């Protein structure tokens, strides 16, 4: 057998034993403890011992979604950060970039994900969707059409949907922030 050990002799032998914590786990610990979130975003861990599953609540303090509290589930697989976190909106909301099943159209959650990105980037990206909804590449087409053709109706629809009303036959969740 090749004497591989001899190649190691110049290294600091005492300092090389590695923990059994998985790379994904360490990375998530690093991402979470270095989160730099504004007051408008809050994480919640149903089980604080489980860092891979949690929710994020976004309470925009400006824009047309102000006053709402929007909840997203984060599910991180053991293949993180090779794979992006799986993010879904937990409520039925009226938003051009979120569909009625909770799918979110955010580039870094799919086609533009890279391992150098982190949870902070994803959260900031999500918040941006509430400040600047994008009607050009929609998931909820009805909402998008309304937004680009008839902005005033759209804004009133947003407000109404956030109170839990029905718009065009779709019942939305009441997402008003409890203060």
């Amino acid at each position, binding site marked *: *057998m*090749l*004497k*591989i*050990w001899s*190649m*190691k002799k110049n*290294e600091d*032998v*005492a*300092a*090389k*034993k*590695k*923990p*059994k*914590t*998985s*790379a994904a*786990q*360490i*990375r998530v*610990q*690093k991402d*979470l*403890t*270095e*989160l730099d*979130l504004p007051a408008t975003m*809050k*994480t*919640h*861990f149903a089980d*604080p*011992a489980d*860092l891979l599953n949690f929710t994020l609540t976004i309470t925009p303090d400006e824009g047309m979604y102000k006053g709402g509290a929007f909840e997203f589930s984060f599910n991180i697989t*053991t*293949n993180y*950060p*090779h794979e992006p976190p799986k993010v879904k909106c937990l409520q039925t909301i009226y938003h051009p*970039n979120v*569909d009625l*099943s909770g*799918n*979110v*159209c955010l*580039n870094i*959650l*799919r*086609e533009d*994900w*890279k*391992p*150098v990105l982190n949870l902070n980037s994803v959260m900031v990206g999500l918040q941006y969707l509430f400040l600047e909804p994008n009607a050009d*590449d*929609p*998931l909820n*087409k009805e909402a998008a059409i309304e937004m680009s053709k008839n902005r005033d109706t759209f804004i009133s629809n947003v407000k109404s949907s956030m109170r839990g009303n029905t718009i065009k036959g779709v019942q939305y969740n009441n997402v008003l922030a409890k203060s």
Partner: protein
Amino acid sequence: MSQTTVDATSGDWEGRYDHIDQVLNTAGPRTDPGFLAGDGVKDFLRNQAKILVIGAGGLGCEILANLALTGFKDIHVIDMDTIDISNLNRQFLFRPKDVGKPKATCAAEFIMNRVPGVKVTPYFGKIQDKDEEYYMQFNLVICGLDSVEARRWMSATLVNMVDPENPESLKPLIDGGTEGFKGQARVILPSITSCYECSLDMLNKPTAFPICTIANTPRLPEHCIEWASVLEWPKVQGDKKLDTDDPEHIGWLYQVASARAKEFKIEGVTWSLTQGVVKNIIPAIASTNAIIAGMSACCNEAFKIATSSAAYLNNYFMLIGTEGVYSYTFEHEKRDDCPVCGGESLDLTISKDLTVEQIIELLVERQDIQIKKPSLATPTSQIYLQAPPQLEQATRPNLSKKVSELVAEDGEVTVTSTSLPFSLSLRIHYN
């Protein structure tokens, strides 16, 4: 009937290893200085070496056959898959009658029948089922896997196993992969050379399309297929899990995708494309697997490492066979901020009475590591996290606890901090 005398215990016959022995009997001009030509190396190869092959698929079949012919007699193989008809164009240890059977078992049986005297021990299951003690028994691990996740796990496990006090704990890992006419192979000496995790950002990621394109502006047949699998499946099938190996599921997706394509006047949705997109199928042929298994990945490197008969690959080989034959070798550098093999680690001997708060102060004060606001966790639980607020609050009561209540003797603690390139791992001892 042949007249050859066969040795009852080894199964060997006179002349069996004449080809191999030519390179083992004497040292060549480029042989490693540690090479001990002759009986010693043969004895190690044939009677002592124990090799683990991970994956009994395209590469795995080739690797097993080469190892057996080279003279390794004690080979183990792990694979969690069963044989599918689409394997038969390259996985040459399997026959049509084997479809549905476990790959590991079938491959082991075939090799033992074909190459007398070789013992192949199969395990039909996941690599994660096995612990360090299991992996410790091998001299060398060879990976022929198609899953990033499994490779990350294997590489990390072998890096973690390295014990500075025990040279035997360092298991060289040879990893190969192919795609069509292209392939690559590398040798990982855990904790010495760059590991799989170090090169994670070099990987091609599967094509993903923007979800809004899929939902609203499909242009390609792939967009229609993703619409069926990503959006329609969960909506229509609810919690039923999509099984990409189930032809009924693929059939459903194919029909839904075809209908959508028709609606949008998009051409080109086929069964084969549907399957290719949802399973992320990578084209695979026998010849490329043979090259990678023969040259580098696998067996030649295993042979060279196990016998020191020549310098091993340092450390990454790539082959492109689409236009002529082009190959190159380079040294992939170890990354300081690699979460698996990079970063610092520290043996820390502390008093049993030291509290978590005190150990944090101790870390912050240490000149050699210069750490700010460290967060601490063991592999199974959080000790103290600086953020986010809920977790800080939840772990705050631990600050006044003794470290010894939370971490066992010889236990490990992962420290992360913005001031560290990646992480620091501590091994805790009590005085």
